[in-house]
């Protein structure tokens, strides 16, 4: 039996596929780029949603993982371009799948590191510590000269994926779309798994989880690292979309925006990040076209969402969230 | 009637806890609110103070309907609460606990200190370092400093040593003698009944019996209150 939410989700997924394909067919490749941006931001936010939505871990530092993923892509590509060896004689690469693996590994490892310290705390402490760690990575990226510092790092030609011309906007979009759908699938699996049970229970009642003999810390740390890796993957794709990485991917505004996506879409919902990303990009595009003050109105909309429409877009479309 | 509670219903979280409580306190009267654990005594008191506003029924204090009034307005209208668990402010000194929310009137710091000399001795001590009995005195003193017309004591002597309990009951008798209206909850009937003018018994969120202490037979005690 299909619930209303499932129907809304299917419609959203279909729309995200149909709109850019139609735009491409009618010679409007720019809308394909916009849709790609939606897909990538949704992927990043889905990563965050794993920690935030399922685990209740309000990370205000996920830009760090997004940026690290981006830099992984940028650095590998630039070494491949220049031919200089990277580390321990390893060379760079322009192969997307390899770049993705590296991006996820590095982001996941950094997530593990940051999580190890920050998960010892909770509540506001956790919010602020993740924020501060992200700032640390941000300042490092700005002042470390090797990879462009504040100027960022260009990837002159988009990286490659076997058998696909990635420079064609619609091909690259499809790659991102497939990855997003895979990530959403993974999210569903994890949510229904033993691990997901423990993670969600730890959000609802930490003491209860500990009392049945599951250490919440390890569950959360694992979730945080997976979440970081997924957001890192999105970062690598974002780098390829823009053919450019810069420290602004690591800024705390980016962390804030990722949370905004989830809330706009609907906290804890599978398709919340996608709905939120679509809404956000459309706002940015429409409002940005109307007025240079678009951030002012974005602020108002966001405030209204938090105060009066807590379910976000999916809450409006599909009713209250149901829990298993 | 000073306090007139009529058919109130209230919920605690998702589940309903009160299903119709009637209770009244006349000027200068001491009323004992009784019942086993979990029968709704504390919820009734919270409902009166609008800490848990009742869903139905009415609470009137000296004729004023308390409906919709935030708890601080209720307090200002003349209810002084000594809550279950005392809830003194642990990070404030005894002196500060007494004056923080004080309102002008007959009760002053000096009079409270006369009533409870122990508090005067410990005026500079943090409330968290007081013993249970001293905390109870502080909670009563704190409520008196707001110069209430009606003093509500939830579990007036619970968990206190016998000696201290005698001191608390003595103070309550004194307050009653001065004409203060009192609504009191306590488990120790032998100490409570001599103080009360009237008793109200709750069972499963309803008021099931009212009457003078003399009418509270052993049979009734066994049925509603017995251990």
């Amino acid at each position, binding site marked *: 039996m299909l619930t209303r939410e499932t129907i809304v989700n299917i419609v959203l997924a279909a729309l995200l596929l149909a709109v850019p394909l139609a735009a491409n067919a009618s010679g409007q490749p720019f809308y394909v780029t916009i849709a790609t941006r939606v897909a990538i931001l949704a992927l990043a936010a889905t990563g965050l949603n794993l920690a935030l939505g399922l685990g209740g871990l309000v990370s205000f530092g996920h830009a760090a993982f997004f940026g690290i993923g981006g830099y992984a892509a940028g650095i590998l590509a630039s070494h491949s371009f220049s031919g200089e060896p990277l580390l321990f004689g390893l060379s760079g690469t322009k192969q997307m799948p390899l770049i993705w693996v590296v991006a996820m590994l590095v982001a996941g490892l950094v997530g593990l590191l940051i999580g190890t310290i920050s998960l010892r705390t909770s509540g506001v402490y956790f919010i602020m510590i993740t924020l501060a760690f992200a700032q640390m990575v941000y300042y490092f990226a700005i002042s470390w000269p090797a990879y462009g510092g504040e100027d960022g790092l260009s990837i002159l030609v988009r990286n490659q994926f076997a058998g696909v011309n990635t420079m064609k906007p619609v091909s690259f979009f499809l790659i991102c779309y497939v990855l997003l759908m895979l990530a959403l699938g993974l999210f569903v699996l994890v949510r229904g798994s033993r*691990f997901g049970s423990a993670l969600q229970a730890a959000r609802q009642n930490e*003491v209860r989880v500990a009392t*049945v003999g599951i250490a919440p810390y390890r569950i959360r740390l694992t979730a945080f690292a997976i979440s970081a890796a997924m957001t890192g993957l999105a970062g690598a794709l974002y780098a390829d979309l823009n053919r450019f990485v810069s420290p602004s991917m690591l800024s705390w505004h980016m962390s804030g925006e990722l949370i905004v996506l989830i809330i706009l879409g609907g906290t804890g919902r599978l398709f919340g990040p996608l709905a939120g990303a679509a809404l956000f990009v459309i706002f940015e595009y429409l409002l940005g076209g109307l007025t240079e003050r678009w951030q002012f109105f974005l602020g108002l909309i966001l405030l209204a969402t938090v105060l009066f429409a807590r379910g976000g877009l999916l809450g409006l479309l599909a009713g209250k969230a149901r829990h298993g | 009637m000073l306090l007139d509670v009529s058919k109130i219903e209230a919920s605690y979280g998702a589940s309903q806890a009160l299903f119709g409580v009637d209770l009244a306190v006349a000027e200068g009267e001491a009323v004992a609110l009784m019942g086993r654990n979990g029968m709704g005594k504390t919820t009734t008191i919270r409902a009166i103070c609008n800490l848990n506003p009742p869903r139905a029924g009415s609470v009137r204090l000296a004729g004023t309907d308390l409906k919709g009034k935030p708890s601080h307005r209720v307090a200002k209208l003349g209810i002084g609460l000594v809550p279950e668990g005392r809830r003194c402010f642990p990070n404030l000194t005894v002196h500060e606990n007494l004056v923080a929310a004080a309102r002008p009137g007959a009760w002053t710091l000096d009079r409270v200190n006369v009533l409870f000399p122990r508090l005067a001795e410990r005026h500079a001590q943090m409330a968290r370092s007081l013993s249970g009995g001293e905390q109870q005195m502080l909670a009563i003193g704190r409520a008196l400093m707001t110069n209430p017309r009606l003093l509500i004591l939830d579990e007036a002597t619970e968990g206190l040593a016998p000696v201290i309990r005698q001191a608390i009951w003595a103070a309550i008798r004194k307050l009653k003698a001065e004409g203060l209206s009192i609504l009191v909850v306590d488990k120790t009937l032998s100490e409570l009944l001599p103080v009360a003018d009237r008793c109200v018994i709750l069972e499963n969120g309803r008021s099931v019996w009212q009457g003078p202490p003399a009418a509270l037979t052993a049979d009734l005690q066994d049925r509603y209150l017995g251990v």
Partner: protein
Amino acid sequence: MAEPVLELSDLVKNFGALRATDHVSIDLKPGEIHALIGPNGAGKSTLIHQICGTVRQDSGTIRFAGQDIGHLGVAERSRLGLGRTFQVSSLAPEFSALRNVMLAVQAQQGTSFGFFKPVMRDASLIDRSMAMLKRVGLQDRARLAAAELSHGERRQLEIAIALALNSKAFLLDEPMAGMGPEGSKSLTGFLDTLRQEAPILLVEHDMDAVFALADRISVLVYGRIIATGTVEEIRRDPAVRAAYLGDHA
């Protein structure tokens, strides 16, 4: 005499100037129900927190199932078989009753790092959990969210969870609180059968239940055990009468 399952020796805990636990020594022997009573604020909660590991004692030892657990975390103590219910129900409110129990079963099976297999299609979890719900009489409420259960049902659910953990001892914190007389009566009967499974340390205000169930009673006042003994010994003890039971005991 059988070796105690749980043994607290000379436990001390201070909060600043306040001594919440004052050289407490009690034990729990196989097959018995040992009730812990005392006025509010006497330090029962602090004591339970120390047994479960949420509060660390200042000195003294806690031995459970033959080993010193005083330095272990909450989850580790649970894994050793310390089953606990809470004074105020502590459940995962959004999860169904069934899924709350399933969490305990999966913990008991020792694998919470499965990422792919859906729990709702895992017969090894569901069957055992349903069996536990049946034992406490909640099988018809299995699909309701814990938040939607009544107060008494949540208590029953907590016990089902403790059962699912194959506990070697139960630590029940005021299980009767907030139950109607009917509920108390049936729960009393249930606890009486539960003692076959594992001994129970029972913290309870409901004297009917305590006197009906307990093999031994300890009375805690101001952080100190003032008496330990059988029901009759405690009823007669003048210190206990003065401090706690009062004249009408």
